[in-house]
């Protein structure tokens, strides 16, 4: 019926795709583009597993229609690492073992990148606040917070 064309940029690549107006951005990323790094957890904005960055702002991609992303620049977890290696925040999580089952990790990474883009030197409270919308049922957050504090201490964020 009323399909429309979505034109946007995902991880630096221009995309043009036919979408259903009911598609969420999450469904577009996973099902149309095959970018399955972004996870679907609760589907209503509580868990943060589907966090991506759209035009510089972190958001839950389950709470946005793909049709709203017209002309937007989107970064998913697949856009963080480069051929040279992991993004600093990914590297810190690996060093500190800040991940267990890994399901929340893409969302945590995107929230952390969003934080460091805005505030290169956050304190512990600011770090905890920034990842408050990302539910992790494995780690108890300690190692995630320690990893993000290490990024701060090293001043390594790109």
């Amino acid at each position: 019926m009323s399909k429309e064309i979505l034109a946007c940029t995902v991880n630096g690549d221009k995309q043009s795709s036919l979408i259903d107006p009911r598609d969420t951005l999450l469904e577009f990323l996973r099902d149309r583009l095959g970018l399955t790094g972004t996870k679907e957890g609760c589907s209503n904005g509580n868990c943060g597993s589907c966090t991506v960055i759209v035009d510089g702002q972190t958001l839950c991609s389950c709470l946005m229609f793909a049709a709203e992303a017209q002309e937007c620049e989107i970064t998913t977890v697949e856009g963080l690492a480069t051929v040279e290696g992991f993004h600093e925040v990914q590297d810190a999580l690996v060093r500190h073992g800040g991940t267990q089952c890994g399901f929340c990790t893409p969302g945590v990474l995107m929230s952390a990148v969003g934080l460091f883009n805005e505030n290169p030197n956050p304190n512990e409270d600011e770090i905890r606040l920034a990842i408050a919308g990302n539910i992790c049922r494995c780690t108890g957050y300690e190692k995630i917070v320690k990893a993000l504090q290490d990024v701060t201490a090293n001043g390594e964020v790109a």
Partner: protein
Amino acid sequence: MDLFNFQTPRSIPELIAAKNSANAWLLAGGTDLIPQLKEDRRKAETIIDVKKIAAMTNISAEQDGGLNIGAAVTATTIAQSEIVCASYPALAYSVALIGSRQVQNRASLGGNVCNAAPSADAVPALMSYGALANIEGTKGKRSLMVEEIFTGPGRTVLEQDEVLASITLPALPENTAAVYQRFTPRREMDIAVAGVSSRITLDANSKIVDAKIALASVGPTPLRAKAAEMTLIGEVPSLKLFEAAGAAAASDASPIDDTRGSADYRRHLVSVLCRRTLASATKELIQGDLP
């Protein structure tokens, strides 16, 4: 979710024309609307994205010193706005309590008002600043006090052809301060068990000449604590006065028992938060400890 027609009007007249049909809903942040659609709690034939309308996404200073905030402006934009932080800090503080950062980056001020949740965090601050809701429809424009919009949980006075275009915060008199505090078991991602915003204006003799106290989560709509306000007018701030105002505010509240708290507990929270917010607002205006 049934298929709907997705529209992105560029002006308020285009928006009103699109809204004036059955099951047409406005989409700003979508943080409430999208879960409602997914769970079939709301049916939509038309979804209208309002974020391409400049008048609804801007913050602009009014000539008389007030501030106009477009209904689609996000919580994050408001929380980071220098002019809001300087002139209406209780609003900047309250919008930064909504959900998580991901939610604040999307959620709009107009959505927080129009969803008409009794717990809406931005609303008590708007009410204590005396904010106006600017509504436009096929028959023209009207402006109401924000508290006049609500008719019940999730219900407003807006007609099918009407939209909330913006919120106007009036210029405040000298010696005015407002503070919002809420109680939640968890600091973030939680809904107020009770919330209180208190605004006072003092005269040159440090007497309270204006007070507006608004309560969240203790009634079917956000509500003004008018008995509490009356106890304050003409008086000099003191701890005893604020205790009395808190007690009056508890009787202004009409809470229910639910999973987040009992009615009695909520009344108690209102009295405590009312006293604390009044003391905190006074501290911004008067040096030293309260008598």
